[in-house]
């Protein structure tokens, strides 16, 4: 089973967050008010932001260790990420969006994997649609399929439901639940919505502005 250990200080101009927690299997919610530093923590785990101090370790891979000067590239961390706004490539089809993330040089095989994933998230018929014309819920499903395409060890979910209407939110929640269980991966879910925590979280890391205060579960 994959384990993730996070003990970092992440700083951006005007804001610092100290985060310390570990995660093992299932869905761990990072919960707290907006602006408490949850997404910054996620960015440090994703490797798009360098921590100011501390370590991030996933199994025997050191993602970041400021004392040793280690900073693994995002590309090498084997992560999947879903953002609040899907961040899809609107100029490519949903199928291409997912296929690009498959770690497979053979294009035909990558498309096969991507097709299976899109069918799994219920978008089998929208595969070649114009990405721009998809609804918000459909876009997040494509983003979820894309995040899983690289067979990640950790799925990072940054407020993935907050821009959805209630119906798509429910179906997206159960989709995340079943995919995480199927694949036996870790998911970190950043949310300020208590319902997300009740509905999904196996473990909870609670944030106050600027730091983590407790981990339970």
């Amino acid at each position, binding site marked *: 089973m994959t384990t993730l250990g996070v003990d970092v200080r992440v700083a951006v101009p005007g804001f610092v967050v100290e985060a310390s927690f570990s995660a093992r299997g299932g869905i761990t919610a990072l919960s707290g008010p907006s602006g408490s530093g949850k997404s910054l923590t996620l960015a440090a785990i994703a490797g798009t932001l360098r921590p100011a101090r501390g370590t991030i370790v996933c199994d025997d891979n050191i993602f970041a260790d400021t004392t040793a000067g280690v900073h693994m590239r995002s590309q090498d961390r084997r992560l999947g990420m879903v953002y609040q706004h899907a961040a899809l490539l609107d100029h490519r089809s949903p199928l291409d969006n997912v296929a690009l993330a498959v770690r497979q040089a053979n294009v035909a095989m990558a498309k096969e994997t991507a097709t299976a994933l899109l069918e799994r998230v219920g978008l089998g018929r929208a595969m070649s649609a114009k990405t721009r014309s998809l609804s918000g819920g459909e876009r997040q499903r494509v983003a979820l399929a894309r*995040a899983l395409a690289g067979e990640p060890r950790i799925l990072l979910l940054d407020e993935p439901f907050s821009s959805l209407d209630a119906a798509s939110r429910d179906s997206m929640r159960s989709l995340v639940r079943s995919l995480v269980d199927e694949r036996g991966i870790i998911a970190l879910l950043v949310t300020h919505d208590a319902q997300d925590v009740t509905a999904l979280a196996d473990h909870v890391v609670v944030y106050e502005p600027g730091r983590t205060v407790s981990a339970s579960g």
Partner: protein
Amino acid sequence: MSDWFPLWLSLRVSVIATLLASLFGVALAYLLAKWQSRFTAIVEAIFTLPIVLPPTVLGYYLLTLLGTRSTLGQGWESIFGSPLVFTQSGAVVAATVSALPFVIRAARAAISNVDARVEEAARVMGLSEFRVARVVTLPLASRGIGAGVALGFARALGDFGATVMVAGNIPGQTQTLPVAVYDAVQAGDDATARTGSLVLGAIAVVVLILVTQVFARRR
């Protein structure tokens, strides 16, 4: 206008110049957009000079840099066997340098405007920096880049000063259409001057319509 050589030469020179300026300009714009420092500001200023310098002064610099007595000019001559200045290749160099700032500035702005989160998402899902540029950044910036390339083409086609300094004014060899118009006016050949001006004006209008209507339209 009886002799269409200047028009064909102008078109050929500006097409080649636009290709060269696009290749080099987009690559440089990408670097400028991604690695911002004091150094990049200086580089950008240098490559913007052709917009603000009098074209004759730009031509003088190029002539000094590439002339038969310069290191670069002698290097060119030892490779290709003939001088660069006062040839059609010289005209291409003058047009390329004139077009470059338009490509660089538009491409740099367009590349900087690409949503960083979409690029980040691509990195997190494992795409190499080169693939991020090819699959994400450049396609998303393509309209802005296209506008810069179109303006660069118009500028290359219309160049007079730098071309005259570097390539000279040899009828049937290096005389581009803008230079031919000047010659025609000097010689009192109104018909040639009028036709040449109308053709250049028409092409410029088409390019500007392209820039404002096609490339600038929001997705």
